[in-house]
């Protein structure tokens, strides 16, 4: 009786192996899910959080930032440095320096949310690479924008 159970167990075990082999064989006929980057790219979701960037004013093309430093104060990693000046004749302060230390940034998005004027947004730049760390620990976000100064 013991031996009978033993043999049945062995046979059952053997067939359970075949079931598993069927699954892996089935997998071979499924189209691979790999995305062959860089020849193909996966779509970026709308809410993708890249590094932050400055949004320009629609009309003047100046940065919207009013240098209130809310983002810098709320940042958990202290990776934002912002200073501002008041241009002659303007009512509000404007940023003259907005530097992001991207090596420290944890991409949490608190700066974007805390901005009272909506001057910050996430970029969709995901393929970041550079030869030295310096390219990322002092990212000048005002670079591409028209400076009021």
């Amino acid at each position, binding site marked *: 009786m013991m031996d009978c159970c033993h043999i049945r167990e062995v046979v*059952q*075990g*053997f067939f*359970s*192996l075949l*079931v*598993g082999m*069927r*699954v*892996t064989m*089935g*997998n071979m006929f499924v189209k691979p*899910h790999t995305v062959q980057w860089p020849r193909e790219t996966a779509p970026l*979701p*709308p*809410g*993708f*959080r890249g590094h932050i960037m400055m949004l320009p004013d629609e009309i003047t093309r100046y940065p919207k930032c009013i240098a209130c430093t809310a983002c810098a104060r*709320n*940042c*958990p990693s202290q990776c934002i440095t912002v200073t501002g000046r008041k241009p002659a004749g303007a009512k509000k302060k404007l940023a003259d320096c907005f530097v992001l230390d991207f090596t420290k940034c*944890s*991409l*949490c*998005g*608190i700066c974007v*949310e*805390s901005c009272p004027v909506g001057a910050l947004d*996430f970029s969709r730049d995901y393929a970041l690479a550079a030869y030295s760390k310096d390219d990322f620990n002092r990212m000048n976000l005002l670079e591409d924008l028209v400076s009021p100064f």
Partner: protein
Amino acid sequence: MKEQAPTYTLEQIDEENFALNLGPQHPGTHGVLRVILHMDGEYILYADPILGYGHRMQEKVAENMTYLQVLPYVCRMDYLGALSYNLAWVCAVEKLCEFEVPDRASVVRVIATELNRISSHLLWWGAYLLDLGAFTPFLQAFTDRELILDLLEYITGSRLTYCYFRFGGLPSDVDDVFLTGVRDFIEGFRGRLKNYHDLVTGNVIFYHRSADVGVILPFDAAGYGLSGPVLRGSGFAYDVRRHEPYSGYDRFDFEIPVEETGDCMARYNVRMAEIEQSMNIIEQALNTIPDGPIRSKVPKIIKPPEGEVTMAVETPRGELVIYIVSDGTKKPYRVKYRVPSFSNLSIFAKLARGQLLADALAVLGSFDLVIPEVDR
């Protein structure tokens, strides 16, 4: 600090035995866990886990930050179940400051957290089988996990260390694309789950590697403070979602899967059943998701009253308790994270005794450890 060696007796250790340094870089320890194993051939006489390689002093970090700034940091502890930690922190602060959370936000939180739980369990499933020497399950799980990550990336913007929930609700609403995406995923995944069971659960080799290995007796569970699937594999139906419902979990109808045997197989079965229960919860949430605002009015600067709060949340690994002592300033006075993996790992030394090396790694795998969470 004065050092005192552990007072365990190692009566069998003589010159025939040797110490094996397992980790901190070892494929079987899932991170920077180091275990010194005193071995007799392939048998482990005594295991001594050494922690702290990923220690970041999270609790001190939290003392020096505002409540909002801590938010992205909590998710870094458990990178596989980040949303549970996210949820625990926002719920704790909301409880402390008595903020309201709109219904829609609560339900979306549940959907996102449960999706995260499924993705965490899937990764565990693959990694556990990797510990047992099978490679295909790992990528099988990853293909489905990718789909969840795509969904979560769609709403949260990132793929692993989400920081999605905010005090009083959510930063952005979910749209129909996400909701139908979740529905489609669950429909498809229910079908694919059969392949998982065919490939692994019924497999005779897997059965012999898992059954009767690393048995946790119910008596030990309380002594070591286990929680989560590790506990539920030993016959206790303890689940924070049921015992202390938060974020509206009491509205959902779900079972707590429990197994009696307490071995690796039981923990495996519990997690597999939990994936299905999570899908049930998500389906119910999708059917009952209300319209309305997603964020209540919350002050910009959070300054809770003096006092303290305890918030327990069921993460994919077990019970997370966040204990905040507030002194009325913008920064917490003291934060304590009671993390599940820490307690779960503490029983490992006991279980590893007298086991084969291969079994000890199977036990370690069945605990579903996230070492940054243990180390904090």
